[in-house]
């Protein structure tokens, strides 16, 4: 390089010059020190370039640290340890029980589940991935390239469509996720599921759309969304805060009526309206309780609770006595392990259970 043609950018793009600034290579340090001695112009150039390097380094370092402190602060507030397990009796009489519990295996389960539970939520910047998935028993928090935060519940799959952020911000969901959408009036945020598409500009809402479930639910917490019911003639609904819409696929019904096209047509134009999101008696919003690490049951049958527990803890549950499927429970659990949850449910309406070790653990429910 010719001295009089070199400028600051040339020095800064030179690896050896940066090594000189950082003092990481004796060879480079002596080269540039000698270069300074060649003349006043050279000395000034080196001094100016070094100052610019330091300015860049400190500024970049500060920017990175500031972002990381903010990220930590927001993650801290997600992992709040709330106390209390509360339980409501469901009008049934409390009965004394004979415990047929295998203490050893349930303790083992308790330790295992506690550990898995706390490892549960992870933060990811999904820039290089276009698909994120959680297994049963696992939850993840993701930040999308536009700054939107997605809380992904267990057993879920989120695909980020190509060209995210250009004309639209589109993702596809199989499972459950809570979206905290970064405001952008130009580029709508769209969540696609099998039965409904949800369009938002800057809001927070929960979408529950497990492929294995018959019902898909969108619950709006803040802002405004437009829901398109894809299996209902593409009817569009606008949700306001604290409203939700549920769509239940009635496949059997449709299949039976397939022969009669007129009746199928009528079925397709079912009346579906937004419903108000009800608070439970304890003042919880059931639809987003999971995001707060809470399990909320509101007069729910054991059958549904079992599905929820399967996803939450990553276990397999089988009913050995069918009638337990219909037992109903109301309860709130915060960061509890599976064994404890089942123990407490038992107190309210007697049933019994065993937890067998394995990968995944198996739970058997008896009356």
């Amino acid at each position, binding site marked *: 390089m010719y001295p009089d043609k070199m400028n*600051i*950018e*040339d020095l*800064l*793009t030179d*690896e050896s010059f*940066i090594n000189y600034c*950082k*003092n*990481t290579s004796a060879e480079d340090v002596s080269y540039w020190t000698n270069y300074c001695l060649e003349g006043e112009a050279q000395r000034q150039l080196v001094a100016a370039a070094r*100052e*610019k*390097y*330091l*300015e*860049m*380094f*400190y*500024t*970049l*370092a*500060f*920017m*990175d*640290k*500031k972002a*990381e*402190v903010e*990220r*930590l*602060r927001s*993650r*801290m507030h997600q*992992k709040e*340890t709330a106390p209390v397990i509360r339980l409501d009796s469901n009008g049934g009489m409390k009965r004394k029980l004979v415990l047929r519990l295998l203490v050893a295996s349930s303790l083992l389960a308790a330790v295992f589940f506690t550990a898995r539970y*706390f490892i549960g939520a*992870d*933060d990811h*910047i999904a820039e290089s991935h276009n698909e994120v998935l959680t297994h049963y028993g696992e939850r993840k928090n993701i930040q999308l390239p536009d700054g939107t935060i997605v809380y992904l519940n267990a057993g879920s799959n989120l695909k980020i469509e190509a060209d995210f952020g250009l004309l639209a911000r589109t993702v596809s969901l199989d499972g459950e996720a809570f979206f905290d959408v970064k405001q952008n009036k130009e580029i709508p945020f769209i969540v696609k599921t099998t039965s409904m598409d949800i369009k938002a500009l800057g809001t927070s809402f929960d979408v529950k759309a497990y492929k294995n479930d018959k019902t898909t639910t969108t619950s709006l917490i803040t802002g405004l969304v437009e829901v398109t019911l894809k299996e209902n003639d593409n009817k569009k609904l606008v949700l306001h805060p604290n409203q939700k819409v549920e769509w239940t696929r009635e496949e059997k019904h449709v299949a039976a009526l397939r022969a009669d096209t007129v009746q199928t047509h009528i079925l397709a134009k079912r009346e579906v309206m937004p419903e108000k999101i009800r608070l439970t008696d304890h003042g919880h919003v059931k639809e987003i309780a999971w995001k707060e690490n809470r399990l909320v049951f509101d007069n729910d049958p054991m059958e549904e609770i079992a599905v929820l527990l399967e996803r939450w803890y990553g276990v397999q549950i089988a009913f050995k006595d069918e009638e337990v499927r219909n037992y109903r429970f109301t309860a709130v659990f915060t960061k509890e392990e599976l064994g404890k949850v089942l123990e407490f449910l038992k107190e309210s309406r007697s049933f019994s259970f065993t937890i067998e070790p394995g990968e995944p653990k198996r739970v058997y429910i008896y009356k």
Partner: protein
Amino acid sequence: MDTDESLWNGMRQGKEDMFLELYNRHYHTLFFIGLKEISDAQLVKDTIQQLFLYLWEKKKSIHQAENVKSYLITSFLRKLTADWKKNNNRVAYLHVAGMGSQQDLLPTPEEELIEKNEAYHLSVTLADHVNELPNRQRELIFLRFYEGLSYEKIAEQTGLSQRTIYNSIHEALKKLRLEMHHPAKPSSLNVMVLLFIITLVIL
């Protein structure tokens, strides 16, 4: 200025701002030590956060620390090895295997730069203009001048040729330097920088 020990005790008592100050104070030390061991910056950042989140969760049962800094470094390196092994089945580098040695407690060149406390080098204008760079150029600037990766390493990580990287960085630098002559635009960064400088002046 609070000592490490008093920040540590503040954390144990559940004082969030003291806890965050602890993180603020040791972040770069841990970051650059981690980067020396493995070149995955995101994994290093995540590991540091997970360590601190764990400390915060277990704060009630933590003891008084004798040497906060070396405790943090040791725990961090231990966790980094464990997480690295989890993600990669191959044997951890010799460097990490020899972890806990005196080598790891020596300051990295970056940390030495930071310790020099040259706060006046912080530039609000520069930060704003870095943010305005096209994504690829901004990424390269961070990789080369913050993480300190060589052109070779950057090429490996991004899949670009060294020539392309060199040219992009050159272009980006031109943008940053030219714009430095313009008056600073107002931004929230101003307040942060002011506080940063005041804090350092107080120290």
